[in-house]
């Protein structure tokens, strides 16, 4: 029975990565969520009793606006990254192999510089005495008093800058595999360029798009360094609050509750998507389709 043997081999091969994920991802996540139900002790440790107080504390009047900002920043940055990466991925995939490699290298080169340094570079760039701002003032496009840095918009720009390559790579990979004859077939059947693009190309790179959304949206939700460096108090995100509760207030259960909220926000859509897919497959299987 080669089928069964294959299954067993598959399981064996899965053990290392599954073990790693369980030990360093699932267990810590469960611990963080569990911690949210503990009380905080006055010395910054975790208390002994179970409580729901921490969740009550989430009613903090500052939170709704921070949560809202975190979500819209993540959504907008994801949308901008995807919308920019689709045409870019399409055109890169149509270039000759040589130019494809050169462009991909250019996309990857910035990663050789430490992330923190790149964010600091943005701070310098946007700083009131920085190059960009000075240039704008010189061109009379901006007044010397106005501020580019320490604003929500600055956070948005830097998030987009940071995650665009992560959106581009999976979309490019999908576009590269896409059979461009399908677009010709669509034109031939009467589709305009836009219709062919929307009805044939976009569904054709669906998997790449999904990956791109996940790798941009989830890290964007958890942004901490970017708003910390280029944002100000008016551009705080949940990540900053978690850090503040952990390092400044020394209230680990409260920080855990905030983290749990973030985890829930990410898991819920994924869970809904997966169940819907499951039922769809079950339905089509029972219909014999």
């Amino acid at each position, binding site marked *: 029975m080669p089928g069964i043997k294959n299954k067993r081999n598959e399981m064996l091969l899965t053990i290392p990565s599954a073990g790693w994920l369980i030990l360093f991802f699932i267990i810590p996540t469960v611990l963080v969520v569990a911690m949210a139900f503990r009380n905080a002790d006055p010395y910054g440790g975790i208390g002994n009793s179970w409580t729901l107080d921490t969740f009550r504390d989430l009613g903090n009047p500052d939170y709704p606006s921070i949560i809202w900002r975190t979500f819209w920043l993540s959504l907008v940055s994801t949308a901008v990254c995807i919308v920019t990466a689709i045409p870019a991925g399409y055109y890169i995939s149509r270039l000759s192999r040589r130019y494809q490699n050169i462009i991909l290298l250019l996309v990857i080169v910035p990663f050789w510089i430490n992330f923190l340094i790149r964010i600091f570079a943005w701070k310098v760039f946007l700083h009131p005495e920085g190059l960009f701002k000075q240039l704008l003032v010189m061109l009379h496009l901006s007044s010397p008093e106005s501020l580019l840095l320490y604003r929500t918009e600055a956070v948005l720009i830097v998030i987009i800058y940071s995650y665009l390559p992560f959106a581009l790579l999976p979309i490019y990979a999908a576009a590269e595999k896409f059979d461009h004859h*399908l677009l010709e077939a669509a*034109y*031939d059947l*009467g*589709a305009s360029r836009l219709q062919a693009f929307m009805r*044939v190309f976009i569904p*054709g790179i*669906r998997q790449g798009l999904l990956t791109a959304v996940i790798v941009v949206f989830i890290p964007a939700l958890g942004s901490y360094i970017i708003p910390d460096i280029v944002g100000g108090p008016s551009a705080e995100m949940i990540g900053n609050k978690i850090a503040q509760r952990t390092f400044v207030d020394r209230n680990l259960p409260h920080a855990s509750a905030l983290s749990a909220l973030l985890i829930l926000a990410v898991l819920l859509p994924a869970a809904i998507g997966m169940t819907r897919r499951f039922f769809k497959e079950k339905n089509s299987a029972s219909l014999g*389709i």
Partner: protein
Amino acid sequence: MEDFLVFEGISKSFGSHKVLDNVSLTVKKGEIFSLLGPSGCGKTTLLRICAGLEEPDCGRVILNGEDITRLSPNMRQVNTVFQNYALFPNLNVFENIAFGLRISGVKEKVIKEEVFKYLELIQLTDHAYKRTDKLSGGQKQRVAIARALINKPNVLLLDEPLAALDLKLRQRMLVDLDNIHDEVGITFLYVTHDQSEAMSLSDNIAVLNEGLVEQVGTPAQIYEAPRTSFVAAFIGDTNFFEGDVVDVDEPYSTLHIDGFTDVTVYNDKKIRKGERVYISIRPEKFSVSIQKPELPEKYNIVKGTVKEIIYLGYHTKYWVKVNEYLIETKRLHDRYMLDEKIITWGDEVWLSWHADYCYMLEQYKLEDEALLTLPDEEIMAEIESESEQQE
């Protein structure tokens, strides 16, 4: 019948490579018109120009009296069946076929009716909601045809539609295609490199070679009266002879063929005494026999040695050496085992044929000899060493 689809002086180059050179063709309404030629002859490019997927460097494409040369592909009343099918992998069979109607905004109810009508035509009603990757090659091909036909194009363009199928399936699909054509009555422009496909399906064939039209005609015209050595050698097998006119008469003349013999030929074109002419004789035109046959007038007869035999069931191929010529002949047998005496290697045989069976070519190129079928290398080497010894 009117001229429906007209190509006027179409030229197209990719870089420095000229793919089509001043090609002019006329396709009549409702016919199956084939573009036949070896790979790289420009046939697919011409089809893509018709579909609007390529733009010609010069020349015009006229469909139903309207110049469509610069029209974008989605605005043309033509649809294509692509060589690799190009079915949309994200859509099932039904949605693939419905694609064109959805684009043009047809009502859902009508779409359903129409799609099922065409599913019935291609006999895939039971597979309507299957994913296309679950279909066999032949089924995919039929979906591609239905997806194109449902838009009721003026011309259906078929780009090597059967190339990816195995032999048996290809033969079945040929019959299916013919039936579909009879049923829908749409003009077909059919691109193929397979002469037997083109012969069995087409009303008219254009033979293309290196971007030029070699000949346009019905399958019988192309086979029986090839204009050039390329057409003669590319479609079926043949033998070429190079001779000088020694005696002109009406309607038969005499040629002296160096290294062969003098032959009587029918005057397919105007010839003068002393002129050099090239003739083509198809292998099946020769009759092969061990005993010298009694022949009426206007028959030619020569004696040769059998060098190679390939038994193919309903017929046998013999390569017979006559002086300097190695001649391919074909002999049908309806009662092989009962034939006089079975011909074998080294036998002396008589080849005979009527003067009408030769065909004078208008144009001959030495390189087209490369298209002829020859016995395998070993036997060719043997034959060559023999003739060297004789010298």
